[in-house]
């Protein structure tokens, strides 16, 4: 991953990207990239995850803008390679640009992505990341800045709210490990970011 400085070419969207936008050439690229999925969670594509931010005309031709999820996510390099090879297969000449701002948020995951995650066995983020940090000051133990508040997470298997956190950190940086106390199944929870 090499990160480019913020570009003043176009302001990036600060929210979910619902569908292909722009000119015919831009839309063709969006369509090609619909097939590029998250390497760790192959049921959702990069647009649905909010990682694919824009297709735009840059100084050196068309640019596909992606944004990293967690700073150290090892899947980012794979995603960049997958985007490049999908474009090459489709015969499209476009450069991939990684841009940090605005910072990726789980709030950008589309409703369809959340449904797909749940069906795949991963509980989607419960509330918006903004709401989670706003609530950080009212945590019971130590009412100090910066402590992330706990949330009620519904089991993706049986739907029960009677769940408990096993570990803050799970199989990847973006997930926590939970257990359902109703159906007794363990499951991954995609943390608000």
């Amino acid at each position, binding site marked *: 991953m090499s990160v480019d400085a*913020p570009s003043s070419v176009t302001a990036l969207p600060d929210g979910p990207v619902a569908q292909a936008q722009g000119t015919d050439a831009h839309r063709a690229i969006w369509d090609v990239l619909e097939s590029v999925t998250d390497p760790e969670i192959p049921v959702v594509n990069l647009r649905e995850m909010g990682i694919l931010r824009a297709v735009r005309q840059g100084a050196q031709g068309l640019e596909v803008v992606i944004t*990293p999820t967690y*700073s*150290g996510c090892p899947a980012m390099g794979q995603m960049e390679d997958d985007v490049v090879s999908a474009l090459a297969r489709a015969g499209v000449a476009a450069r991939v640009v990684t841009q940090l701002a605005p910072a990726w948020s789980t709030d950008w995951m589309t409703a369809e992505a959340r449904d797909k995650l749940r069906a795949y066995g991963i509980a989607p983020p419960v509330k918006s*990341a903004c709401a989670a940090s706003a609530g950080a000051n009212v945590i019971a133990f*130590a009412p100090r*800045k910066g402590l992330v508040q706990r949330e009620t997470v519904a089991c993706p298997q049986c739907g029960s709210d009677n769940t408990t956190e096993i570990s*803050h950190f799970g199989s990847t940086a973006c997930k926590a490990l939970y257990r359902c106390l109703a159906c007794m199944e363990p499951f991954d929870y995609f943390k608000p970011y």
Partner: protein
Amino acid sequence: MAGYQDYLLHLADNALILAQRNAEWCGHGPILEEDLALGNNALDLIGQARMLYQHVATVRKDGKSSEDLLAFFRDVPDFKNYTLLELPHRTAILPTSAGDRDYGVTMARNFLFSALMVQVWGALEKSSDAQLAAIAAKSHKEVQYHLRHAHDWVLRLGDGTEESHRRMQAAFDYLMPFTQEFWTESAMETAAVKTGAGVDVRAFRAEWEATVADTLQAATLKLPSSVGFVTTGKFGVHSEHLGFVLAEMQSLARAHPEAVW
């Protein structure tokens, strides 16, 4: 301009050296979940360090600086991390085996540092350097999880068994004097604050002390004194431990320069 690069390197080195220390638990965690947690924590920190080193390389515009050069080809006096972050995971100042690592020290250090960085990254989101602000926005989200994780273990171990309480207290007694370094003035920080790119860490002291006092009280621990020798890691004058950290971290890259996977 060198002053500002030093400020960015200070932030990057803090992240990289703590990441390297926390990654030592990989495969040795006290339980599987904590092994994974420390691996994730280290990954976040390495990611933050990479973005910051890339930014330094861009700011330098010398055409040869890169994240790898900055991480693997600088020596001890070039590193500007807090001494706190390079210490081994134990209270004894003796060379001992990996088996003597103390998870209480790991959690106390992560707690003390994350409680500071939650505020630093939050404030740096308004940095006049747009790229640093962008890095801060991401790092701020991540460090909140690091703080929560360390905070919970401080409570659990402090208010746990007789042995866990004793070791958690010993960890804070040992580490607290190293936190004095946070508040010492340095030219690189003063310069960065003046341009609006950096933030004055000393402005967060009262809030940090309150967070530490609250958590230690909830964990039935005594707040230790922080007086004693003031360490100087951020000025490049380190403890004897950093050389060993760098030797392990840098040897592969130096044995095989420019090797790729």
